């Protein structure tokens, strides 16, 4: 029997599953669906081509084989789809694959009672960062001199972004070099420190698979009792086979993680420094956010935004007729979200006005963490704003005519 903290090499025993490295992730999901541990699997599948990963909602275990393999252009966030379209997993059991930002988003949504974690099985995927599909295609055409349509596979390995063409050509360029030119991974990925998502029930990846199993097995770390039960179940049911990891592999995995976390911290330092400090930083934020068209894509895609009545829509706070909107629009978002920002990057990547929203929010989050000690996305501990049930709170304010928000939260 496995328990939290145990680590394994695991690989598929299904003939039809051709995974990136052993196929354990897809096999675990298939087992969970077949054994009716979950009703639906929310994961990612190749769409039109390798640059087009699409979220899929799978209820038929036979369909899972088509989801095997990793896609580094998958820049979207899955957990909010559980809230939006699966009723927050309130009455449906969901298995979901999560990279670091997904795992953190899942926790923040759960804290706000938008997702029922009792019904969620999360399979973590190691993630060194993702690349926007349009950036990837332009980069491959211009920096690699390769027709992006000829690329059949891409991977990030040993600090390089490597592409493979249909006629077997391999070409890698150092990520550092790409990122200095504004290419490569998204800016928020560059700042990320969550490379192995241990918040998930199981954390999987190819880092640390060493020796004869290299390329043939998935490294699995058991991260919760729920993860242990599903992992053991998959072994007993014959979905996967396992062995102990090579000690040298453990060391390698630790090294990769620590190097990447250091890179993340370094990127934070330089990106935050570029914003300036104090008044200068405020001026930068005000200047860039004056491009806002109030489309609300940041709100729509933010894993922290969940309010039924959004304050940015209140005419007494934000004049609804002005474009760009008053700076209050952004102040409301900072006040409501910054303490819990998980740096998923959606608000920036999907901003039609190219406002570096995620950079602004993340820069504030690290400062607030120093002040209030709340680290978003690592466990279920609550930030102040998540204490209240929005509907109850609004009802109370209505019923009593009080304007004392959060009175019930702060009362002894």
């Amino acid at each position, binding site marked *: 029997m496995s328990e939290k903290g145990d680590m394994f090499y695991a690989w598929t025993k299904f003939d039809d599953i051709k995974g990136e490295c052993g196929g354990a992730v897809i096999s675990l999901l298939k087992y969970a669906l077949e054994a009716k541990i979950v009703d639906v699997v929310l994961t990612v599948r190749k*769409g039109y081509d390798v640059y087009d990963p699409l979220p899929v909602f799978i209820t038929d275990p036979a369909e899972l084989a088509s989801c095997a393999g990793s896609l580094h252009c998958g820049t979207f966030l899955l957990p909010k789809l559980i809230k939006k379209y699966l009723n927050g997993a309130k009455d449906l059991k969901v298995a979901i694959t999560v990279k670091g930002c997904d795992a953190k988003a899942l926790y923040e949504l759960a804290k706000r009672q938008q997702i029922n974690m009792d019904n969620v099985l999360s399979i973590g995927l190691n993630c060194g960062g993702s690349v926007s599909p349009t950036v990837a295609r332009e980069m491959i055409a211009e920096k690699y001199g390769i027709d992006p349509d000829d690329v059949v596979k891409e991977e990030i390995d040993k600090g390089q972004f490597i592409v493979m063409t249909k006629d077997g050509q391999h070409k890698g360029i150092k990520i550092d070099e790409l990122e200095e030119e504004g290419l490569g991974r998204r800016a928020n990925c560059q700042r990320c420190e969550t490379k192995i998502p241990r918040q998930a029930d199981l954390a999987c990846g190819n880092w640390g698979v060493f020796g004869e199993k290299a390329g043939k097995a998935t490294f699995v770390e058991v991260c919760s009792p729920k993860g242990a039960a599903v992992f053991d179940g998959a072994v007993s049911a014959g979905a996967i086979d396992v062995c102990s990891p090579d000690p040298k592999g453990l060391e390698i995995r630790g090294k990769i993680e620590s190097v990447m976390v250091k890179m993340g911290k370094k990127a934070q330092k330089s990106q935050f420094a570029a914003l300036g400090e104090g008044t200068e930083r405020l001026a930068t934020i005000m200047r860039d956010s004056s491009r806002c068209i109030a489309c609300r894509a940041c709100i729509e895609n933010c894993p922290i935004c969940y309010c039924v009545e959004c304050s940015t829509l209140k005419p007494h706070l934000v004049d609804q007729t002005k474009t760009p909107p008053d700076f209050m629009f952004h102040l409301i978002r900072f006040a409501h979200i910054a303490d819990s920002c998980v740096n998923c990057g959606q608000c920036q990547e999907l*901003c039609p006005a*190219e406002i570096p929203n995620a950079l602004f929010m993340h820069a504030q989050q690290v400062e607030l963490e120093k002040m209030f000690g709340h680290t978003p996305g690592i466990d279920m501990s609550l930030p102040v704003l998540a204490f209240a049930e929005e509907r109850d709170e609004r009802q109370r304010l209505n019923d009593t005519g009080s304007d004392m928000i959060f009175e019930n939260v702060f009362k002894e």
Partner: protein
Amino acid sequence: MQMNYVTTICPYCGTGCALNLVVRDGKTVGVAPSNRSPVCSGKLCSRGLRAAQALDEARIKQPFVKGEPADWDAAIGKAAELKKFAAGEVAVITSARLTNENQFLVQKFAKELGAVIGVVNGGTGSSTTTLNEIRDADVILALGDVMKALPLTGNKILLAKEKGARILYIGPQSYTAVQADTVEISDEFAELPPGFSTLLKNAARPVVVYLANDAAAAAFAAGLKINAAVLYDTNNGRGTAAMGITPLSLPETVKAAFIIAETPEMEKDIYADLLEKLDSLELSIVAASSETSLSGIADIVLPVSALHESEGTVTNWEGRIQKIKQAVASPDGVKPLADVLVDLAGKVGISIPTGTPEEIYTALAAEVPVFAEVSYEQITKPEGVYLREA
């Protein structure tokens, strides 16, 4: 539970952003980004984000004759009274939001009937530049509030600005004026302010940007002799113009009108002008997927499929032809526009092409030179395919 994403094109402006419609158990329940889109990289404006709701809102689900519910046979039978009018007395008023295939059929219908044809909310002119060329421009002259009308085209202007391009603006106070670095607030385009001329003359990659329905801006831009982005603010205004369908001008002789009023909700007022004339007509027929001011007072109302209920192609302002995919089935009682046109054609004694969207497209490509050499199959790729002249 069945749930999937269907990648299609936004039904609103002429930028042609791709988006994913989220479909659950046969119904559209939301919009998700299509990060793969070379046009928008997944970014959408407020309208695109709302597309799933807009396409399903205020739907007309059965035919009406004189305000009363009617069955299809009765409504088409009544609409066939179009044949009583002489050539020149009938106007076919189309929408700049139809697919290329449906637009081709509407045009055929009008031609066979001898009717005049015009488009509401369309435009004229073709661009000599592309979205990526706007992004890479070094001086951009915007005439009017182009960034508000086409927000994701505006995105390329912002990207150019980030890379150091100069953004010049002539027009009324507006969002675009706020984003430009050099601004001339004016209601007309009289002459180029002196500073502007020098910048444009010395630019390596200058672009002028204006709306396809702004004749004054078009005339002014023509004098500049630089690459122009002619922005259509409808999803297929460019395709409609490419077929030679020009903005509506209703002759005095018109006594009957067949109006295809395809417009997602939030934009009802585009028919305000037409509304006044409707009363003076002897027969008015509206085919539409959702309610507009026109459907309330037309003699006959025919409910047709919305843009996410059948497949086809649309052409963005660049001249990029992209695929629209069917996400869901039409509600009961609603027919595809192509079927309605064929039925009505039969009743009035004319003949128009029939077939699958691919067959109609192929017929279109054989007849309209700018579409020639682009096959329906090629259009499937996320990049789409440019019209030949673009």
